[in-house]
């Protein structure tokens, strides 16, 4: 337990960074995890230099999904779109710093899915490509 709910996860969960929505978002997308009802919406503002200069997320769900969304927001803010696109599963799991089984993996990666499938406009099969086997 103390292992699973590490202080940094609980911290992000209790104090999410960049919570809310953006009025002037250039990209907005929402996804839910049908198995548990977790929902995450992400708003981005990408400027003319292709830099993500504003981020916000809004969600409902478990500590893992909300904390990982909060962490992801920190990771992409200030990056260019291309830099942000390079962020994958491994980076999220590393940030969480815990071992995650297949069911909760969906919670942990929900925010990444919103970003890739939605904000970056990648199709499921594209962003899932590394996941073919």
């Amino acid at each position: 337990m103390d292992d699973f709910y590490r202080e940094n996860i609980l911290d992000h969960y209790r104090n999410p960074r960049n919570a809310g929505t953006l009025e002037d978002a250039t990209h907005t997308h929402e996804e839910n995890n049908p198995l548990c009802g977790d929902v995450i919406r992400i708003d981005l503002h990408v400027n003319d230099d292709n830099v993500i200069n504003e981020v916000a997320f809004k969600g409902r769900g478990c500590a893992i999904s909300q904390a990982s969304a909060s962490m992801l927001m920190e990771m992409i803010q200030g990056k260019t779109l291309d830099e942000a696109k390079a962020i994958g599963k491994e980076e999220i799991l590393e940030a969480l710093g815990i071992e995650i089984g297949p069911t909760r993996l969906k919670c942990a990666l929900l925010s990444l899915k919103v970003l890739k499938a939605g904000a970056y406009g990648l199709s499921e099969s594209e962003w899932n490509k590394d996941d073919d086997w």
Partner: protein
Amino acid sequence: MFDVEKIIQDFPILNQGGTSKPLTYLDSTASSQKPTAVIEAMDTYYREYNANVHRGIYQISEKASDAYEKSRKKVGRFINARNWREIIFTRNATESLNLVAYSWGQANIKAGDVIITTEMEHHANLIPWQQLAARNGATVKYIPVTEQGYLDMAAFEAMLSPEVKLVAVTQMSNVLGTIPPIDDIIEKAHAVGALVLLDGAQSVPHMPVDVQALDCDFLAFSGHKMLGPTGIGVLWAREEILNAMPPFMTGGDMIKHVSFEGSTWNDLPWKFEAGTPAIAEVIGLGYAVDYLNTLGMDNIRQHEIDIVTYALDQLNQVEGLRIFGPKTPENRGGSISFTLGDIHPHDVSAILDSEGVAVRAGHHCAMPLHEKFGLAATTRASFYIYNTNSDVDRLVIGLDKCLNLMA
């Protein structure tokens, strides 16, 4: 006679365990654990007489056929079917329900007809009827669930009309635990000429079920929730109804004669069992039924009433815990779904897991019911023959840790 400590000895997983802490298994509503007798029966089949059934004229195949058909009789007697021809083996309760929706449904549901089900159904007893109605221009109506988790019987009566062809209702809710007034429902449905299908996925493992006494028309249930293996389910229906139904899946074993022009169908029950069946699983289910019979379904029901009585009492003392469904143990089964303050059920479940307590979190395949209660998910603890009051105690201790950590 009903000695829980002795029962626990029969379940390998509760003794050796696959978890780092000893396992408190409170998820039997999703799938029960299996006694040694069931596991070994399948093992013996594979090691000693594995062969395809029905058509082999050699010793091990005859032995396999015999064991397969003996299991059918065990299952038939267990629910007091009129004869073994009324027992159809499927993969799970879900397939049993789909079989009725495709075969009986396509032949009997026409534009303008009404199918009644309830707001507390498992998706398996909901979507097949929505799909059937959409295909054929019929309507699905839902008996409302009250705040206390009971069916609104006045609303049900108001729905009844000659257009109602089927009433498909659970005999025990897997979320709320509710045991609806089935006798009353069957009587009123039959009075307008509707057939009654019971989703027995939760009732058959947990209480005595007698299809003749009930006078229902269809009953669907799953082996894996009643001490049996995965991959095996049952559809029971009255022989006349099954005889009049067209086949569902077609292929080997379900035919009388096949030519390039067309085919004729085998007798019951084989008409509905196309292809090589789940032989080991059927045999395993027979042993599960033997095990349940030895304990006695009345005793099992009483054990669950006892443990639910204790659990409701203990859980009511946990801060911020809200239980959904009937509060009186006599009207409910062993599934207790709840929320714990604002803590997400996933987190509750994960923290409980780290304490060795296995519960389920989510919508439990009853999304519309959860939405009705304004929830995305609940945590569910469920009890079976191998659970004791000290499992309840471990659950409560785990919930206190959740509160400490997350609140």
